[in-house]
């Protein structure tokens, strides 16, 4: 039961500004994911919310109360560290019980709460083991157990899955999502992996260079990225960007000439500017479809990744500017294409994205949501 609000949070270490004026308002019981490239300030922001680091400026409000200088326990948060930070000399039981021992919880209640946490996390028959005897996934669960045993209002996770192998990561994503439903708590989750962000989040905060690029639901970010950075970051495989020039525009559309693709008219608003302005066209690889030769534009396939249900073609299209430019397309799974071959693709202008040379997106009028 907790709302979290960040107001004008800035942070600098010595002379380097790491976070710039961050404002966020997180609803009760939301699963929020902070996503961004390595070094963008995600961990720092999480540590500021946790109370491990002090913001240079700004306030943190939890449940309407200013906790900017409160102790982590008084903020009602708990944190799972990237390295798990388990106490290697203590058993799983004592690791999970640690916050309760600090709080001097009576023995009977302590036992009951640790067993309850162990039950949720399927650690019941591991309670007497030391962390060193556990697998990566189990250690992860112990770290989560230590954070849920205190019944905090807000859970903070710093890249909790980054040390696990791919298969386990998939399982833990599902487990964490169901844990979120069971616990009914607000969760803030940091990752650099946009797949984790898309699959787990109620809302995603995309951070880049210490700034919030965009805050919204996964599908909002997918269909309406506000900046070229968000467009390139969200979506797998990531978006193709093609340099274009404006040829004409009205209030509801914009005609462009895209390098290597040709003339397109996109239904976007606020396409202000003059003819000849350089713009950037964005096409998601999954929004392309095959067509017969003589139509659409041509792509030379260099590598084909078959995923079964679909296949990803990596290759190049012709470019007036640079000779050729790399390009990706998602094709049907059983497509008859081999590397080196040319294919013909077409694109639906309704699905395209358009960015100014500053990287700001123009609003799409025919998007799905």
């Amino acid at each position, binding site marked *: 039961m907790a709302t979290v609000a960040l107001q004008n949070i800035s942070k600098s270490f010595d002379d380097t500004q790491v976070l710039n004026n961050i404002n966020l308002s997180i609803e009760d019981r939301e699963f929020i994911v902070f996503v961004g490239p390595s070094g963008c300030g995600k961990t720092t922001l999480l540590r500021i919310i946790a109370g491990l680091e002090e913001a240079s400026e700004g306030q943190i409000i939890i449940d309407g109360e200013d906790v900017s200088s409160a102790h*982590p326990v008084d903020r009602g948060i*708990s944190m799972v560290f990237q390295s798990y*930070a388990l106490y290697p000399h203590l058993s799983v039981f004592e690791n999970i019980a640690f916050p309760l021992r600090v709080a001097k919880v009576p023995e009977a209640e302590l036992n009951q709460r640790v067993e309850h946490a162990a039950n949720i996390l399927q650690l019941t028959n591991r309670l007497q083991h030391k962390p060193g005897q556990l697998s990566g996934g189990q250690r992860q669960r112990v770290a989560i157990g230590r954070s849920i045993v205190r019944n905090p209002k807000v859970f903070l996770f710093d890249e909790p899955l980054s040390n696990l192998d791919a298969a386990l990561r998939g399982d833990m994503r599902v487990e964490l999502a169901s844990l979120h439903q069971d616990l009914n708590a607000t969760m803030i989750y940091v990752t650099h992996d946009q797949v984790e962000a898309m699959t787990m989040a109620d809302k995603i905060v995309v951070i880049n260079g210490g700034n919030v690029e965009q805050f919204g639901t996964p599908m909002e970010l997918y269909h309406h990225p506000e900046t070229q950075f968000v467009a390139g970051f969200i979506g797998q495989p990531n978006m193709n960007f093609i340099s274009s020039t404006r040829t004409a525009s009205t209030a509801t559309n914009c005609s462009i000439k895209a390098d290597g693709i040709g003339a397109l008219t996109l239904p976007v608003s606020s396409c202000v500017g003059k003819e000849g302005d350089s713009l950037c066209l964005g096409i998601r690889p999954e929004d392309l479809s095959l067509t017969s030769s003589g139509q659409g534009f041509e792509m030379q396939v260099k590598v084909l990744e078959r995923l079964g249900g679909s296949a990803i073609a990596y290759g190049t299209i012709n470019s007036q500017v640079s000779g050729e430019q790399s390009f990706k397309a998602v094709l049907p799974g059983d497509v008859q294409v081999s590397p080196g071959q040319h294919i013909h693709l077409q694109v639906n202008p309704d699905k395209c994205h358009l960015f100014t040379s500053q990287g700001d997106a123009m609003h799409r009028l025919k998007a799905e949501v």
Partner: protein
Amino acid sequence: MIDKYSALEKLGLYTAIGIFLTFMLLPFVEMLLASLRPLTHLFRSPYQFWSDDMSLQAYSDIWVTVPKLPRYIFNSVFLASMTTLICMVFVVPAAYAYARFQFRGKAVSLALFLAVNMFAGAVLLIPLYKLLRGMGLLNTYWAMIIPGAAFLVPTGIYLLKSFLEKIPKELEEAAFVDGASRLYTLRRVILPLAVPGLIVVGVYSFIGAYAQQFLFAITFNQKRDYMPLPAGIFEFIGYQEVIWNQMMAASIIGILPVLFIFLFLQKFLMAGLTAGAVKS
């Protein structure tokens, strides 16, 4: 690591180690042999490495020649233990502070601490004597314990600091987030994890205290009842002659405690002295 030495190089290495060990250990061997020989045969020539008249006689005679010997042995162990204890009481919090906190003068004070170690204890004997006399501590156990601990604290801080620095900071942060105070975290998380480091510093202090007590004992103490073994051994030097074989026997008994501690804990010691030398 792949063994990259040729046979010839290995031979050279082992020869060098052999020569080194011979120089190091020969005095001890001679000490042992001397303690086993009858006094009259000690100086016979030609030198005999092994002879038939060797016996453990000296080991039973020493208690008669120097009746206070048990007392001296007790004093030695007691002084070294107390020195170690006091040393640890100062080293643990200081090392923790140096490992974890940023404060003004951190580097300078640490360098000063180590600079103290540059002075051999002997250089400071006269100032120390004046100090202890001023405090009325001459001819007490304290006269041998306090200077002993003072000389061991700097290196102890340095050793333990490098140990504590290897304990991940996140463990402390996790405890902090869970509401633990610094002292609680120190007691329940840091110190249990630092046990190998504490053993290293403890052993280092004990051996150091054992070795240096002689100097402090003969300068700051004249009470026979407080003398440690190295000073008590003087009593084997009589007016007429030195009872060498018994003196050697008493010396061997004297180094036994250190030897045992060292043998049992050398695994920890080797790991500890190289701690922080390589990144794990």
